């Protein structure tokens, strides 16, 4: 009995000692928080995000600017309030210097607002791509090295109007800020050409049974533009196929992502030949990109058949942080002012092309218009049909005119 008590005491003392050691060791290490989704509808995306950070850190040997990196992971479920709680935990309890994340559009808006209340830390966006996050009242310490959801659709509206010949399109999309952003990106080109979006059906995030939404698609639509996240899109595709609907589909960026293409199921037969657009595409014929894919496959043999877009998003974000830290030799003094100045001026040569930031710390990057194709080994991938170089957040339009049109919403834009 006594010996057991003693053992407990010894254990407790050991734990306490361990804590005190790690506390005193902290100042020399840079603490980086990673926030992604290992819960909710975006689990597959979250796994990819953490793989990306792991690969980027390993390439740098967990060192940047001469200092070791401590990596602390947290998981959200895709909802803004959960992301906010987890971000607070990382910043306030784990005391991270830099936070990389979050995953989803609404989360990004919440984290950006939170960033304003933590001006001494730096926030680098992971994969969230709502337009408002950086377009309207941006936070000075929030950086986004990935294009936003509207940028991701650059070239798609023109492509389906000119090449596919679609004139009337119905939209079925996720009812949240990222969904609005993507639809705006698609419509700004498609409507400018004279195309009509005759019906917009917004479905709540996390909907599994879309059959009644499918029933609302008007017959006179030439094609249906769809955008929903992760697991939801697989359900939609299956139910669309089973319903006997014949209209061709146009895929929002998340639907053509590897997290969907790599999933197994009968929905796959519906996908080949469908157009989409994104900030990265597995079909990029470039030595640097192929090298990046090879590294991914070697490092994650149980991963997807090629790295997904969320992988790319978090990879670029982590690479940007490492590059910034290297430039200032790990100096985060002065509330990280030097580090932030370095980040703002970065020009990163990434696997899918060069990335630089505008005055709102929002990425300017290449966009790839793609079509889903089947590779020799039977897996699906996005074949590049067109590259739109250096797309900025205002899609090439003057900033004031673009902002004046208002943030994307259920009814904005509209061209029925």
């Amino acid at each position: 009995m006594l010996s057991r008590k003693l053992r407990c005491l010894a254990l407790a003392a050991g734990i306490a000692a361990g804590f005190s050691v790690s506390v005193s060791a902290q100042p020399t290490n840079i603490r980086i928080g990673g926030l992604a989704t290992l819960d909710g509808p975006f689990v597959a995306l979250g796994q990819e995000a953490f793989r990306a950070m792991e690969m980027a850190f390993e390439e740098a040997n967990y060192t940047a600017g001469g200092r070791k990196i401590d990596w602390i992971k947290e998981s959200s479920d895709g909802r803004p309030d959960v992301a906010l709680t987890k971000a607070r935990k990382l910043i306030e309890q784990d005391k991270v210097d830099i936070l990389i994340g979050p995953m989803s559009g609404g989360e990004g808006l919440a984290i950006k607002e939170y960033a304003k209340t933590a001006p001494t830390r730096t926030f680098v966006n992971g994969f969230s791509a709502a337009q408002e996050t950086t377009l309207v009242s941006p936070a000075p310490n929030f950086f986004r090295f990935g294009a936003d959801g509207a940028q991701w659709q650059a070239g798609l509206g023109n492509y389906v109007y000119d090449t596919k010949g679609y004139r009337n399109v119905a939209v079925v999309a996720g009812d949240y800020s990222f969904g609005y952003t993507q639809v705006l990106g698609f419509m700004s080109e498609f409507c400018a050409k004279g195309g009509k979006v005759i019906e917009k059906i917004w479905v709540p995030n996390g909907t599994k049974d879309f059959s009644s939404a499918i029933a609302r698609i008007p017959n006179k639509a030439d094609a249906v533009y769809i955008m929903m996240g992760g697991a939801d899109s697989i359900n939609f595709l299956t139910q669309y196929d089973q319903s006997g609907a014949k209209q061709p589909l146009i895929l929002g960026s998340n639907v053509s992502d590897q997290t969907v293409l790599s999933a197994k199921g009968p929905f796959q037969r519906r996908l080949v030949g469908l157009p989409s657009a994104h900030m990265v595409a597995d079909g990029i014929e470039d030595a640097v990109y192929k090298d990046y894919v090879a590294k991914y496959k070697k490092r994650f043999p149980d991963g997807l058949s090629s790295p997904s877009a969320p992988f790319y998003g978090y990879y670029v974000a982590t690479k940007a942080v490492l590059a910034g830290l290297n430039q200032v030799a790990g100096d985060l003094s002065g509330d990280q002012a030097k580090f932030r100045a370095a980040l703002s001026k970065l020009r990163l040569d990434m696997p899918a092309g060069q990335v630089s930031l505008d005055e709102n710390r929002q990425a300017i990057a290449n966009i790839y218009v793609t079509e889903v194709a089947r590779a020799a080994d039977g897996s699906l991938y996005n074949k590049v049909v067109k590259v739109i170089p250096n797309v900025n957040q205002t899609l090439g339009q003057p900033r004031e005119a673009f902002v004046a049109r208002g943030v994307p919403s259920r009814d904005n834009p509209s061209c029925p």
Partner: protein
Amino acid sequence: MKLLLLATLNGITLAALYFIVASGFTLIFGMMRVVNLAHGSLYLIGAYIGHDVAALSGSFPLALAGGAIGAALVGMAIHYFLLDRYQGDDLRQALVTIGLSIIAADLLLARYGGLSYQFELPEMFYGSMPLPIVGGYPIFRIVLIGLAIAVYLALWLLVQRTRFGIMIRAGVDDRHMLGAIGVNVPLISTLVFGLGAALVGFAGVVGSSALSIAPGEDARYLLSSLVVVIVGGMGSLPGAAIGALLVGLAEQIGLAYFPTYSIILSFVIMVAVLAWRPYGLLGRPA
């Protein structure tokens, strides 16, 4: 008109799925009063085991059987080793099963990853069939209705017409008296729990054929089962059927006519029913 019909049909077929999931829950939670918040995890376990069986054997019926048996074994182990000793202690059962569901979710994520899985349905069930007015309708969703009716009838017969059913009902009313007359009550409880788990495992395979299986489905189906059983009335099989119909119809008609609010509609129904009939539509005081 066509939209309303389609939405109604969709609601009924979704209700069929909800009923199959909730029928196991009404057996375990409603009749036996075992608080099992790992019900959703059993759904996921059944679906994933079914998927493995289908991948190995290529047979859909075997997958159904595999999912049901796998979930039943896991369920019986949970009941025998963890829950039976806390019979009547709701809070402990709730905490133990919440803990289990968190562990199970992470284990399944580690084993199966975050990607969605679907079943290759037999050719005769895939695609759509012609129906008057609405045009085409997915065959498998019609099959769902048949499955739900079969489950309902089988359960009703078992509970109302067999010796085993009499023992279940007696155990619900007075566990100690049943034991005193020589019935092995813990064994009966574990078997009933296993039956409930088998039903939800079966539902897992059916549900992931109609929709898909991915992490997070556990919480969704636990929630829908809770709402269905609470709305219908604890322990009432017809109640669970009516509850499932209400929730399924609300979800689909909501999605067709006012999608923004469809998510809260089932909770509005729950609040309304509880305000009007605190024991649920067909429930009686415990």
